[in-house]
């Protein structure tokens, strides 16, 4: 027969086991930081941080080698900005329609379609950018080369539309109905309620959705690896071939850089930069979301 003491011991053991699975998440974060910092430290023994942050060239694969992260950061920024120019208007338009205009039945059809759009693998988006969008753009800009920031940026914008629309729609739906009714009582029309009441009340939630979409765009890898080229260049011209931080990491990964080589360590120094950037953007986004949900 099991005594009460035995069973209490088993209960405690089980709780410990379950807890250790939950603690694995903390371990993962520590491991990410540990691996990135440990390997990047070796890199920064060879290359000074000053050079890393201020040199305007990134040529780790040619001589003379230059290790300035700026061209990769500018490439990432350029593609991100283009993607926002697509995703913010379209995503917000979609969110306004879904939250203010769409009848329930239509919403039940459209939302799953947007979820499918969000679930398409990124390598498929990359294929679409290179084989469909780029040829069309080349008709409009004949001087543009095959690998360019514009095509990758536009398609990345399509990819993040569902992120912007679904989080913004959540924020708009959370606006209490009495605010809408108050405006209608004053004689406002539907679009005036949508713009002046709902959009404004949900504004910080909408900003948060855009910021989280930015973080997604910064970390996106396959679209830029396939369609944006592999030429690190400090430029804001969308018709040129560029390289993003993620694109560079992919390029080195393909070649199986040997463990311990400087080339191998560049993966981690660029990865660390990417991680810090995304981390900061995420913290801002999550802070805004929490502040927004506390409001209502």
């Amino acid at each position, binding site marked *: 027969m099991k005594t009460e003491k035995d069973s209490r011991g088993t209960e405690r053991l089980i709780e410990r086991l379950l807890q250790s699975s939950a603690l694995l998440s903390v371990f993962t974060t520590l491991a990410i930081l540990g*691996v990135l910092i440990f390997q990047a430290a070796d890199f920064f023994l060879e290359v000074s941080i000053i050079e890393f942050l201020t040199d305007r060239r990134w040529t780790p694969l040619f001589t003379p080698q230059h290790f300035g992260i700026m061209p990769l950061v500018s490439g990432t920024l350029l593609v991100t900005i283009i993607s926002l120019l697509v995703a913010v208007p379209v995503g917000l338009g979609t969110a306004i329609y879904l939250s203010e205009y769409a009848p329930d039945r239509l919403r039940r059809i459209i939302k799953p*379609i947007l979820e499918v759009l969000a679930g398409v693998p990124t390598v498929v988006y990359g294929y679409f950018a290179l084989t469909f969008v780029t040829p069309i753009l080349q008709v409009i800009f004949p001087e543009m080369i095959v690998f360019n920031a514009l095509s990758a940026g536009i398609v990345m914008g399509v990819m993040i539309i569902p992120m912007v629309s679904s989080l913004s729609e959540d924020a708009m739906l959370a606006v209490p109905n009495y605010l809408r009714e108050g405006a209608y009582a004053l004689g406002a*029309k539907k679009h005036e309620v949508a713009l002046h009441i709902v959009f404004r009340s949900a504004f910080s939630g909408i900003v948060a959705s855009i910021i989280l979409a930015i973080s997604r765009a910064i*970390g996106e890898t396959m679209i830029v690896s396939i369609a944006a080229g592999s030429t690190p260049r400090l430029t804001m011209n969308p018709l040129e071939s560029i390289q993003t931080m993620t694109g560079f990491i992919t390029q080195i990964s*393909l070649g199986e850089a040997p463990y311990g080589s400087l080339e191998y360590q560049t993966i981690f120094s660029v*990865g660390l930069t990417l991680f810090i950037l995304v981390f900061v953007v995420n913290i801002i986004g999550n802070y805004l979301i929490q502040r927004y949900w506390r409001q209502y």
Partner: protein
Amino acid sequence: MEKAKDNRRTRELTGKIILGFSLLSIGLSILSLAIILGDAIIDGLPYFDLQFITSYPSRFPEKAGILAALAGSIWIIVLTTLFSFPLGVSAAIYLEEYAEHNRINRLINLNIANLAGVPSIVYGILGLGLFVDGLRLGRSVLAGAMTMTLLILPVIIIAARESIRSIPREYREGAYALGATKWEVTRDIVFPQAFPGILTGTILALSRAIGEAAPMLAIAALVYVRFVPSGPLDRFTVMPIQIYNWVSLPQAEFRGLAAAGILVLLVVLLSMNFVAVYIRNKHQVRM
């Protein structure tokens, strides 16, 4: 009088513009999805046949197939499921049923939220440093599956927690009233009730994993695999890597192969999603 009329006309016009703009946005989103899928289907169908599924990659487009990558993807998904399901469910059960509101658990919660926002390529780098080189697993199926496990664990935990949270408290209290211990309640009441929801969340997370190219590239690299992995320590490639490889080759025939590869990937994805939705709907009817 005139002015009031003008004002009304402007207001009506603005209303139409706003409605038109939001309708246009919806149309654009749906149209893009249709074009993305249609483009891949039109390009890929001519190359999509049994020989494509049963052949290894080749320098000659007419002989090339996706067998090695398909097998690699299946290996990765099976191992990832074995690792991530028990870990994810245990973590979710702990956080929902056991955890008190103290500092460690707040830290765990914050961590899971943050991990869900880390770019997938960073997990690839983590796997490269930790599993491939740190644990000396090499560029193996095992290293790939362990990396993928860390990548999708936050998603599984979040989905499993939602499912566990939706179980009415009365169920648990009824069992406690009969003298059950906490573990007995968890094992016999909470887990069976939450299982369909957890399963749906896990399948959806795995269907995301099967489309991930970036972290697998960091682990497996671009390797010419002409075999089906026979053990967890073998080298491998997965479907998204093979597709990426074909897209980056200049000849048009290889683009066609890439599109055919996309079709295989989408068929696998759709069937997984179909199963997930089926489980969810079946469960909803019963509740």
